[in-house]
Structure formats: structure tokens, C-alpha cells
């Protein structure tokens, strides 16, 4: 039986499970205690001290986020002592913080700013310490800008990078007044092991870590009469964008998003889903080819398991941490980059456009995509395949700037060509989605039959568990695939780089018997991407996840190989998966960044 702890908060009795913090107990009573360093995805830090409360009989105030309840505890959350202390804490934080709020990218979206507003901090009661500091801005990365003058040292980023991502690109350096959040030897973020995943950006309560935004560049392109601006949107954007535009978490806004993009002035509103389906064709074929080499040809050089390559944060991670396993990575570009390469070749040809006049923009739930688009190998069209990458948040900003009333926009459909989508592509936005999409197609290629799961829902690879494993026995194969008859296909799905590390360690040690693994850098997959609306936490991701599978279930086409535009592009342009053109445009190579 679970032990219950009885306590009193602001005169109200409550009984909670042992181990509950004062903060959690207070929230159950709808008592709001302000927090800054606290984040539901992260371990407790207890370092900002803004959540202090008074405990009867205690000499000091208690950090409610870090203090577990105890029997008979009497807590007051709003005494004069508490208010005075909290106000002091906020004033102290502001005194060390570059408070030029009106010139800050996070203006209106900053937790310190709202606390200052709540507590009506109006006078300079303390001395401004910023002039005494030698703050620096790291704006070298194409993905993330780190401005130390805004940092409040809450260490959410440090905990994110270490615990959720196992990367530790950011950590605490120096002590006392010189304490700061820094990288290895204070190098710019793009020169260290940072994966650009942006999970730190998503959790930064202030403007110390923000995405490098390309909003003005995109507006300029839109207004440039000589440019044909195409836009693609990733599957995870349409289930989260609404959150930044006054729509409830978990609502699908695909149609409104398309309408908004058209109103913003993009010349063609297309869909990353199209190249997600294409990815399945390429990657699925790649996997089957490798399995054939391994099983039929007994080729021991075949690197199994094969790992997905859609997530650019994951790519940078493996390039740094497991360069010896780079041969295991699928050579497929991510859907964003496949799209970019095709936009300036196939699309240009079909629409009779000069590729030099095309500006290709992508809307992504991701900050690592910005880095990916900048990689030197991503110019197979002869141009920069994707010119600008915007996060979900940046798109929301543009929609607001344009004065659109998003809620009242009509539902519209993407343009064609390269605008058609299937349910298989939509689920790329959730952890396990690529795996499920690949299995739906691969199984049918091998057996000629639909995969034997009710409504094609491959539930074992769905859900929020950090590492998911699923095995599928292949039966009744078509003649050309009979080498797979009776073979049990072992798969693993991991999301969040800390979970990726678990899987990759077992692969590196030779303990894993997987054939195919899907890895997404961000917790719960792209729907929890670093470029998604803030806040993002497990509770919010669960709703986004449900929305994704709802979108899939509601689509007429649920399998990538049934996407008519995919069938068309192979007939007209690519010929066949892994064909010559595919190799040229849709596949890539990787860099060992450890030995460097």
C-alpha cells in the first residue's frame, strides 16, 4: 500500500503520495507558485530559488520544487516573507540580465519577463550588473544563437543536454560571479559536439538560447518578384503550429496552415510528406537490398542494423559519438533535403522554371534542419537545395506579422506536384513513425499483402517509451523475396539522444540483433522537436502524438508506395528506387567528426 503524506498548504489540508514535492502538492490545490529553473521534463535543480515557500518552524524558506512533503508540514506560499524574498530573487536575476526586452527575440515569450510583470518590478532597486560583465554572444551557428547576457543560469539547457540528450555540449563553467553556461573551452557551439537539436532552445526560459531566425530573409524572398518561392512543411508542424496561434494543444491545423502559407505569399505550397513517402521507397529498398546481400550473398561487409537518417540531430550525434557505425546509417537524405534537391531539378523542369530563380523554404519542427540545409553536401541540385529553414515558431511569428486571423482561415490543400501526402508520411512526426511507414511498405513489397496489423496500426512501435523493440516474422513471401521466408525482422525505435545512446552502445558492443533501427534526436520524435512551440513537455507531446495518429487514420492513402505523386516521379524522373538519379539527388554521405 502506498504511504500518503498529510500536510497543509495555505490553510488547506491535502494528502499526497510520499515523494511528492511541495510544488506538486500546491499545484494540485491550484495554488500557483512561480518557477524558473523547474521544467517537467528535467530533474530538479532548485537553483533559481524563485519558488520558495514558508514552512512553519523552519529557519529558512524552502525551495518548493526541490523539497519533498513531510507528514504534518504546514506551508504558506504567500506570506510577506515569501513575497519579499521572491521579489528580491526576481530583482537579482534582472540585475544580472540584459533587460532590453523590447529588442529581444523572446520579447513577450520570456518567463523572466512575465515574472517581472507579475511582481510589478518597476524601479531599479538594485544596481545593474550587466556593465560589469563581459558577456558574449555566440552567433556562429546556423541553428542556435547563445547570448550570455540574457542567461539566468537556471541550467535547464545543461540538464537537457546532459540528461535528455547525453551530449553535454553545454555545461557549467567557472564559479561564483563568473559562473556561466559554456561549451568545451568556450568554443562556438558549432565547433563542439552540439547536435543543433535545439532542445535547449525549447527549454530556455529567457532569450539566452534562441534559434537563428530567417524570418526577414524569407519575407524578402517572398517580396522578390523574380523569385519563385516554394515552401514545404514537415509532418510535425501541422499538429503543433496551432499552439502558438491560440488553438488548443493536440488540434490538427493542416488545412489552415496551407491557407496561411498561401496568404503569406509563397508561390507554391508543397509538402515534406511527399518526400517522406519517397524516403520510404528509397530507404525500404536500401534495407531490403542490404538484407539480401547479408542473407543470400553472405556478404559480411554489410553493416546491419541499418539506421534511419531523417533526423539531422541524430546524424550529427552519430558523426561525433559513433563514427565507426556510420556505415550502418541509411544513405538516404532526410525528407527535407530530398525535397530541396527535387525542387530545383524535377519541380523546376516540370514547372519550366530556372532553378536559379527558385527559393526553397522549409518549415520544420527542428533547429538542426537549419544546420543540415547548410551542409556542403546538400547542394546536389547545383544550388543550395534548401535555402531557408524556419521552425514552427518562426512560421507562427510570420502569420502574426501578416495579421492573419489563423483560427478563421479556411482549410486548403497543398499544391501539386510534390504536395501529396499519405498517412505513412504524416506519422514521420512521431517516434516510431518512420519504422511503421517502412514496415507497411516493405511487408507489402515482400509478400504482396498488407501488413497483418489491424487498420495498419503497428502499435508495438508507437508510444512514448524511450526504446521500443518489435519483431516481425515474414511469411508467405513472393518468389523473388523467398530468401526472407521465415526470417524474423528485429527492429528498435529510440527517441531522445540519451535513448539513442542506449541502443547504439548495444549495437557498438555487438549485443544487438536488430536489422533496422529508427532514431529521432528529440524526445518523442519530431513532434517534440527543438523548433516546436514553447512550452513543450511530455503532457503536451502526448496530445501532439495523438493528433498525428488521428491524422494518419483519417487519410485515404496510408502507405507510401501508394502516393500517386511518388509513383509518378519514379515513372517520369527517378526511374526506380536506388537508381542513378536517386543516388545523385536523394542520397548522401557522412563525416567522421570524432577523429577530426
Amino acid at each position, binding site marked *: 500500500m502506498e504511504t500518503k503524506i498529510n500536510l497543509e498548504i495555505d490553510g488547506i489540508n491535502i494528502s499526497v503520495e510520499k515523494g511528492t514535492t511541495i510544488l506538486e502538492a500546491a499545484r494540485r490545490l491550484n495554488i500557483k507558485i512561480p518557477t524558473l529553473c523547474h521544467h517537467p521534463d528535467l530533474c530538479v535543480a*532548485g537553483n533559481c530559488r524563485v519558488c520558495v515557500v514558508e514552512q512553519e518552524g523552519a529557519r529558512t524558506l524552502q525551495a518548493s520544487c526541490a*523539497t519533498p512533503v513531510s507528514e504534518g508540514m504546514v506551508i504558506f506560499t504567500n506570506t510577506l516573507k515569501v513575497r519579499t524574498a521572491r521579489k528580491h530573487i526576481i530583482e*537579482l536575476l534582472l540585475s544580472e540580465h540584459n533587460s532590453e526586452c523590447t529588442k529581444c527575440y523572446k520579447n513577450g515569450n520570456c518567463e523572466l519577463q512575465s515574472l517581472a510583470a507579475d511582481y510589478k518590478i518597476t524601479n531599479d*532597486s538594485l544596481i545593474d*550588473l550587466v556593465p560589469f560583465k563581459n558577456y558574449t554572444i555566440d552567433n556562429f551557428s546556423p541553428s542556435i544563437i547563445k547570448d550570455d547576457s540574457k542567461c*539566468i543560469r537556471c541550467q535547464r539547457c545543461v540538464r537537457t543536454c546532459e540528461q535528455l540528450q547525453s551530449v553535454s555540449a553545454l555545461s557549467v563553467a*567557472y564559479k561564483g560571479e563568473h559562473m556561466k553556461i559554456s561549451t568545451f573551452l568556450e568554443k562556438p557551439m558549432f565547433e563542439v559536439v552540439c547536435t543543433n537539436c535545439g532542445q535547449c532552445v525549447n527549454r530556455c526560459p529567457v532569450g539566452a538560447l534562441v534559434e537563428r531566425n530567417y524570418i526577414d530573409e524569407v519575407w524578402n524572398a517572398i517580396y522578390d518578384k523574380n523569385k519563385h518561392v516554394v515552401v514545404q512543411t514537415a509532418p510535425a508542424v501541422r499538429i503543433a503550429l496551432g499552439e502558438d496561434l491560440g488553438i488548443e494543444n493536440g488540434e490538427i491545423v493542416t488545412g489552415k496552415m496551407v491557407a496561411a502559407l498561401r496568404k503569406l505569399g509563397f508561390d507554391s505550397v508543397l509538402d515534406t510528406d511527399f518526400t517522406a513517402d519517397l524516403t520510404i521507397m528509397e530507404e525500404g529498398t536500401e534495407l531490403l537490398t542490404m538484407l539480401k546481400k547479408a542473407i543470400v550473398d553472405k556478404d559480411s561487409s554489410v553493416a546491419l542494423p541499418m539506421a534511419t537518417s531523417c533526423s539531422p540531430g541524430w546524424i550529427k550525434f552519430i558523426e561525433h559519438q559513433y563514427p565507426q557505425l556510420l556505415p550502418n546509417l541509411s544513405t538516404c537524405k532526410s525528407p527535407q533535403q530530398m525535397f530541396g534537391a527535387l525542387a530545383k531539378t524535377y519541380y523546376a523542369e516540370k514547372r519550366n522554371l530556372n532553378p536559379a530563380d527558385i527559393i526553397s523554404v522549409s518549415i520544420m519542427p527542428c533547429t538542426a534542419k537549419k544546420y543540415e540545409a547548410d551542409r556542403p553536401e546538400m547542394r546536389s541540385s547545383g544550388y543550395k537545395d534548401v535555402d531557408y529553414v524556419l521552425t514552427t515558431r518562426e512560421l507562427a511569428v510570420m502569420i502574426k506579422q501578416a495579421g492573419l486571423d489563423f483560427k478563421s482561415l479556411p482549410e486548403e490543400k497543398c499544391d501539386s506536384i510534390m504536395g501529396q501526402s499519405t498517412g505513412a508520411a504524416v506519422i514521420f512526426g512521431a517516434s516510431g513513425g518512420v519504422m511503421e511507414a517502412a514496415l507497411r511498405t516493405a511487408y507489402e513489397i515482400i509478400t504482396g499483402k498488407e501488413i497483418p496489423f489491424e487498420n495498419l496500426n503497428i502499435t508495438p512501435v508507437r508510444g512514448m517509451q524511450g526504446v521500443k523493440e518489435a519483431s516481425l516474422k515474414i511469411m508467405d513471401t513472393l518468389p523473388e523475396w523467398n530468401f526472407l521466408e521465415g526470417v524474423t525482422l528485429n527492429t528498435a525505435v529510440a527517441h531522445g539522444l540519451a535513448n539513442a545512446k542506449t541502443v547504439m552502445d548495444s549495437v557498438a558492443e555487438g549485443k544487438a540483433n536488430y536489422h533496422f533501427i529508427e532514431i529521432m534526436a528529440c524526445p518523442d520524435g519530431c513532434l517534440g522537436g527543438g523548433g516546436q512551440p514553447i512550452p513543450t513537455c511530455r503532457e503536451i507531446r502526448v496530445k501532439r502524438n495523438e493528433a498525428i495518429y488521428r491524422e494518419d487514420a483519417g487519410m485515404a492513402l496510408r502507405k507510401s508506395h501508394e502516393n500517386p505523386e511518388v509513383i509518378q516521379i519514379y515513372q517520369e524522373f527517378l526511374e526506380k528506387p536506388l537508381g542513378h538519379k536517386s543516388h545523385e539527388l536523394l542520397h548522401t554521405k557522412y563525416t567522421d567528426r570524432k577523429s577530426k
Partner: protein
Amino acid sequence: MNSNNLKKTDVIFGIWPCMEDNKYPILEAVINRNPDDIIKDIINSGLKGRGGAGFPTGLKWKFAASQTESEKYIICNADEGEPGTFKDREILLKVPEKIFAGMAICSHCIKAKKGFVYLRGEYKFMLPQLNKVLESFHESIRKTGYDFEIKILLGSGAYVCGEETSLMESMEGKRGEPRNKPPFPVVEGFNNKPTVINNVETFVNVAMIQKLGVAEFVKLGTDDSRGSKVFSVSGDTPKPGVFELELGMKLSDFVAEYGDGDTKAVQVGGASGFCVPRKRFEDTIIGFEGVPTGGSMMLFNSTRSMYNVLSNYLDFFAEESCGQCTPCRVGCQQLIQGIKAVKKGSKNEDYLDSLLKLTESMKITAKCGLGQSVANSFYSIVTNFKEEMIY
């Protein structure tokens, strides 16, 4: 007041030998005693921790002993870093065997098999000597068949690592930062196992109580402050050095003995302690009922600027704060800039009151004793020497 009122003692360094011919007779006596009886002795002795905070040692051990975990640790905090404190240095140099014996007694009481001495980095020079004593200690303990081993680890120079949980973080190879409490070290300490951490002098006191008996120990000191204490005397004094004195003395008696005749103030307990002005010498008791100290006694005569003294302390705290919690990290910087501004005249003297209120908040919101105790010296210097802050 004449200096005869001060009672000099010699129990820590002298009186009783702990080691005879490289043997530790005390250990055999301890091993054959019931651990609960020893803990009861320590509780009855009234011994309070000698690091400064003064937590009752016996109670700490009792909590640790009641933990059911099989793996427990003992740590001797020898990270002596409080400005003006150098008494552990003397103890470590002169009677290390008594420290080890105290740790062994603790290990028997709480059932720990492993102990550590976390030695201040600057005391590295002691290592060869300490390890030599430790070797013979291990040898004689092995002969008794008792299973306990001590290892000496070196700190790296951070003041905050003298704070018990930061010290444990440092021992675990992490950045030296205080942890959230609870859980307290007796429940989750080093490696998240129940841990007793005591000051160097506390362990020597324990060995002494075992050797001479509770009755002998309680003869010294007052009801609230039992025993004697090793003091580090520095500053404007003709007799700087380490002295063992009975607890509960009047500060005026102390000044009569160690002052230079012109003592303006005594900083009791180091930078994190209290500054007592001359007018309060007579009614200030040095002990837990009055002004407690981990040993540091710094005397200042009339040639000293108390503004400079405070400014020096604040620089120290701003530098030595670990930086993780807001009140300590930013508060210290504000106090430095604040007193500078008042001195310069860019803020008027009322600003000192705002700063005093700020230190009140620091005292109740900082995560560990470092940030909480900045208020002590700030309050006592600013209120007692206000004119020196302004002009």
C-alpha cells in the same frame, strides 16, 4: 579583566596518547563496546560539531546508525577553508592518529567499512606523513580483525567544497556544488549512501570522550557548549597561533589575553561569522549560546577600516560562491557594488538598509550555508560600523 579567566586546556593535542608503540589500544576497547552505548555517550557528552554549524554529533550518528542500507561511509571534513581558520592544519600535523581513531569509532557505531579524509588541496604537503600514520593505523586495526579502511582524498581549492554536500559531489568527481536538502547526508550522502561527515576536531573529541569518559568531557564548557575548542587566532594580536580554550568564555577575556590593547572588533567564526565590536566584548559569550565559531578569531585594531574588511569578505564570497543559486551568486555581487556605491556617494546611506533587507532574503533563500551566512558579517559590520561604510 584579567586573562586568568580564560581556561587553557590541552585535551586535543596533549594529555592522552591515542597511539602507543604504533598500537591503538583505544580501538580494541571500542570494538568490544555496544555501538548504541557509544552513541549514547556522545549524545550525553553534548558534543556539537566543531566545523562551525554545531549540529549535535551523537544525534547525527544515531540517524546514520538507524539507516538500514548495508553500505555506509564516514567522511572527515579536512577542507579547512574558512578565512582565518588554521586549527585543523595543526591537528592534522600533530595528532592525526586521534582523527583516525575517531573515525574508526564512528565506523563501529554506524557500521561503515570505509572512511575518507577530504583534505584541503593546500595541505598536500601533509600527505606523506598522514599516509605513514594511516599505514600503521591500518596495520593495527587489521590485527584486531576489524574491517575499516580510510582513504585520503585531496580537494582542489574551492571554499564551497567545505560544505558537506558539495564536498561529496566533489568526491564523486562532479562539480563542487551543494545539493538540495533533504535528503541529508545521513540518509543519502556520498554515492547516495548514508554518510556521516564530521569536522577533523569533532573526530578527535569523540576519541577523547571514549578515552577519558563523558564525565571528564562535560567538566569543560557550559551547558550549551560542552568541551574545549581549538581556536585560530590571527589579525592584530601579539600572539597569533593555535590555542585550545574552554568553550563559553567571555569575548572580553579572550581579547584581554590576545588583543594588542587597541582591539576595535573581533570577527568570530571567519568571514561567514559575526563581527563583534568593542562595546559588545563584555556581554558576548563564545559558544553556541552566544557567538559560535569553527575556530577563527580575527582581531582588528583601530588602524583597520571595517569597510575594507567587509569589502574583502564580500569579494571572497562573490568569488567562492558556487554560482548555482540566485541569492548567493547575484546577491554577493550586489552587496559589493552596493557598498562601493554608498562609499562613492552615488547611492545615499539609506541604500545600506536596502542591502540589509537583501541579506535577510539571502539568509533564508540561499541553497546552502555559504549564501545564507553572508548576511552574518554583512549585518554585523554594517550595523556596528555604519559610519565607516559611509565616510
